[in-house]
């Protein structure tokens, strides 16, 4: 369950970034502020 003040679940996921296919692991961003955004789908309107 997600709660503020608790650890964010770690994950690794395929990614498209700077023209390349790569992989992103949340824990690689320890030491930085992260904004993680979910959205319903590419080409959705808002």
């Amino acid at each position, binding site marked *: *369950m*997600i*709660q*503020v*003040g*608790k*650890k*964010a*679940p*770690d*994950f690794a*996921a*395929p*990614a*498209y*970034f*700077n*023209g390349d*296919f*790569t992989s*992103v692991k*949340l*824990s690689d*961003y*320890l*030491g*930085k*502020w*992260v*904004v*993680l*955004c*979910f*959205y*319903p*789908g*590419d*080409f*959705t309107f*808002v």
Partner: protein
Amino acid sequence: MSTDSVFVHKMWADHELSKMITKGTVPFPMLADGGGNVGTAYGVYDEDAGVDVRGRFIIDPDGVIQGFEVLTPPVGRNVSESLRQIQAFQLVRESKGGKATPSGWKPGKAVLTPGPDLVGKVWEEWKVQMAFD
């Protein structure tokens, strides 16, 4: 992050998003959540629709979730508000928890120093109109 594949992300980035932004490239990784496993872990995966709904999580340098906002698909986010919250969390963190940002705070506005002397005295430092503008 959405349930789209990285191939669809590439098409969207190259053919639509690149036309919306001055830099021409999306400045952050676009993540693929096929199967919705990550969305499920964060409580934003809609099993009926098979998609991740509009969720935004602010995670601090220790990997701790400081805030989140979840919306149904047709309503977009307010990026300025997300940035304001990050600035507030950063201020609190830099103060090692000694400061707090009251309702309506934004950079440049007064912060509070919680402690015995402030109990019952917030009304002297903060007025309702400070929640707005």
